[in-house]
């Protein structure tokens, strides 16, 4: 990592590391007690460790000048390692909280192992830790290949990756210690939110600077999606998290939004976290890795344009479908529902484009589990976007909302689409970044594939059953005009589905664990060779 930095970058890095240590010290000193001290200490330790490592290497020999004629993949390697670590931890917590709904007393009643504190650890861990690291790591890789240019500098990718992971760590440890904004999927407290804004600006600037160096006249589709991910997530994050800290020496803040406006802002954010974090970025991943792995060009360029702008424009409108029949004005709900249905057009255009790309390569889908991961991802993307539009229809939503059907829908998107495309990308990337033809254990990919598919299906089908049962029991009236079931009866009916869901999640986790071990074995057997074709086009000097 440090050996690839120039002497000037090492000095700058040293300055950044010192600033981080100082920031940590300041936070701890200002707060005096409570979780903010722990978070300050984390920043301090990371800052000191980085300072030490950089200080020791400042006067080591500078990197070879020839490095400019290679892509810079060290950050991608680190990002993939973090992706897998977060995947195992956060999916593990997911299985844990799933089990708690079946065995509520399985783990002792101490604050930090309580369901309500673990649940946001699971959601933040998978969305930001697993998904975010996967997006950042692959975006660096794809950006360089599709631009035929090396990353603009060697220092900022590390600031992005280390800073982002510090944000994730602050967030999840904060929940365990009891600090949260309680805004779903945006629970991290104010200083973590501010920190993420800084990191995100560095990320955006790096992206634009690298694009500016590209040797290809056109910016490839994958980069449009990665750009939309970076830009819109920034807008959503800043507006949804606007808050007044009660004191700059404490973690507690008060969100500036209240009541119905807060509900609308929250679900505008919440649903577009799905759109621009969990969809746009991963479509970027799909648009690069699917054609590369299948050896087929994207089926339709026009369809790519249609779906990109369709998704970017339509998605923003649909958040209000989370608030059907609530105190939100009726016309906003109707707009949300209408756009949710229109959204099916660009969504299916993307899914169809991906599947049509595989035409002529079906034998590869059959033989190659890695490509099959991507194919299944595209199928689940199509299915879950259809389900999403369907659930957004007001009368359907009256049954499904507040039930486990929503949970099932989310997981068909996250397990079936997001995680599968990540695994497809990882199994393509890791051998290549290790200078090998294939993964260390090729047969384990096949095992992972079937564990993941079976786990997802068991999970999703059990949650469909759970949700529809709940919804029907809640609204069921007897002949005398009274409600037929108590709430408790509907809860008791959930037990078999909650058990099945835990088993499905466990299978998915087992597959992920296998993937992590496989990747680590492959990385350990790395040869360090770089394919002759995998090099930037060196731009001519401009003088």
């Amino acid at each position, binding site marked *: 990592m440090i050996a690839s930095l120039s002497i000037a970058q090492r000095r700058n890095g040293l300055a950044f590391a010192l600033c981080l240590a100082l920031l940590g010290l300041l936070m701890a000193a200002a707060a005096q007690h409570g979780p903010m001290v722990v978070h300050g200490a984390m920043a301090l330790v990371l800052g000191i460790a980085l300072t030490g490592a950089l200080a020791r290497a400042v006067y080591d020999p500078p990197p070879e000048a020839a490095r400019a004629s290679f892509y810079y993949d060290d950050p991608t390697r680190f990002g993939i390692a973090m992706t897998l670590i977060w995947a195992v931890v956060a999916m593990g917590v997911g299985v844990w909280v799933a089990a708690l709904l079946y065995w509520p007393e399985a783990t002792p009643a101490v604050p930090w192992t309580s*369901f309500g504190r673990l649940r946001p650890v699971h959601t933040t861990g998978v969305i930001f830790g697993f998904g975010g690291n996967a997006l950042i790591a692959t975006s660096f890789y794809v950006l360089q290949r599709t631009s035929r240019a090396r990353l603009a500098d060697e220092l900022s990718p590390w600031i992005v990756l280390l800073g982002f992971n510090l944000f994730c760590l602050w967030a999840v440890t904060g929940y365990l210690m009891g600090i949260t904004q309680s805004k779903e999927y945006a629970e991290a407290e104010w200083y973590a939110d501010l920190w993420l804004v800084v990191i995100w600006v560095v990320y955006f600037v790096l992206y634009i600077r690298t694009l500016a160096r590209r040797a290809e006249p056109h910016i490839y589709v994958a980069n*449009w999606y990665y*750009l939309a991910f970076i830009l*819109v997530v920034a807008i959503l994050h800043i507006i949804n998290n606007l808050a007044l800290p009660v004191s700059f020496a404490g973690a507690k803040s008060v969100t500036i939004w209240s009541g*119905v406006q807060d509900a609308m802002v929250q679900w505008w954010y919440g649903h577009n976290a799905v759109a*621009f974090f969990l969809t746009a970025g991963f479509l970027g991943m799909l648009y690069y890795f699917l054609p590369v792995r299948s050896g087929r060009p994207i089926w339709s360029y026009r369809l790519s344009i249609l779906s990109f702008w369709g998704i970017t424009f339509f998605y*923003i409108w649909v958040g209000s479908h989370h608030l059907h029949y609530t*105190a939100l004005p009726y016309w906003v709900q109707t707009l949300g529902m209408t756009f949710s249905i229109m959204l099916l057009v660009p969504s299916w255009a993307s899914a169809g484009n991906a599947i049509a790309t595989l035409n002529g390569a079906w034998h590869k889908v059959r033989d190659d589990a890695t490509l099959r991961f991507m194919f299944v991802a595209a199928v689940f993307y199509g299915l879950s976007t259809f389900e999403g539009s369907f659930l957004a229809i007001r009368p359907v939503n009256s049954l499904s909302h*507040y*039930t486990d059907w929503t949970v099932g829908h989310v997981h068909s998107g996250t397990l079936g689409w997001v995680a599968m495309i990540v695994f497809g990308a990882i199994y393509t990337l890791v051998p290549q970044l290790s200078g090998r033809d294939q993964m260390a254990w090729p047969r384990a990919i096949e095992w992972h594939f079937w564990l993941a598919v079976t786990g997802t299906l068991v999970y999703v089908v059990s949650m469909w059953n759970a949700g529809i049962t709940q919804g029907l029991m809640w609204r069921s009236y007897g002949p005398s005009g009274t409600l037929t079931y108590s709430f408790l009866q509907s809860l008791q009916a959930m037990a078999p589905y909650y058990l099945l869901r835990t088993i499905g999640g466990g299978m998915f986790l087992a597959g992920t664990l296998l993937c992590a071990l496989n990747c680590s074995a492959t990385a350990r057997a790395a040869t360090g060779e770089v394919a002759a074709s995998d090099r930037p086009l060196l731009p001519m000097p401009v003088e």
Partner: protein
Amino acid sequence: MLRLHYNLEKLSTGLVLGIIIAASIGGFVEIAPLFTIGETVERPADLRPQTPLELAGREIYMREGCYACHSQMVRSLADEIDRYGPYSRAGESAFDHPMLWGSKRTGPDLARVGGKYTDAWHVAHLTNPRAVVPASIMPAYPWLSEPLDTSGLGPELATMRRLGVPYTDAMIADAERDAEAQSQPDSDGAAGVKERYSEKIVVRDFDGSVARVTEMDALVAYIQSLGQLTAIAHDQPPADGE
């Protein structure tokens, strides 16, 4: 059109601007009007802000992630009104920073739970849910018997006032004392809490031990206040039409 895009994708700034514009319109159209429409900005005349003890309870409700399993939003559907009570109005959560409408009912809705059960039931239920409801899957919260930390309440009220919640100077100055007095009905400060907030607020020893103010006192006070901050949902008959 295609030609235009052919040129656009050679320009990174063009793409950046295009994305920002395309992704801003929907949010602007849907969110901005909510700050002016009467239905969404009107505050019920009798809406009172939460007392410091209730606010402390709300913080505990958020800290423990209760909102992940309990909604506080009765939808305008017949079965929900029959099961939970009058449907929720926008004005009821006008002082909620943030709102806690929730998105999932692993447990029942709580928007109308205030006054539905006794304090003793809540204390027993929160300490060990299965002691009261054998089939419950709710976690137990034995650590709520810890003393309540009231030190941050004054500044928190002051911060909320800056955002428009009508806390008075006296409420802010006495926040910590009021938090304790609300759970000590025989103390000197008890009358002051009612005077500052409302005659209707509940001043009682919520957790069954007068000696000290616990997190349990705060959480139960909060739960008993749910749906009780304004009578708007009970007084007004449902509007005609939709």
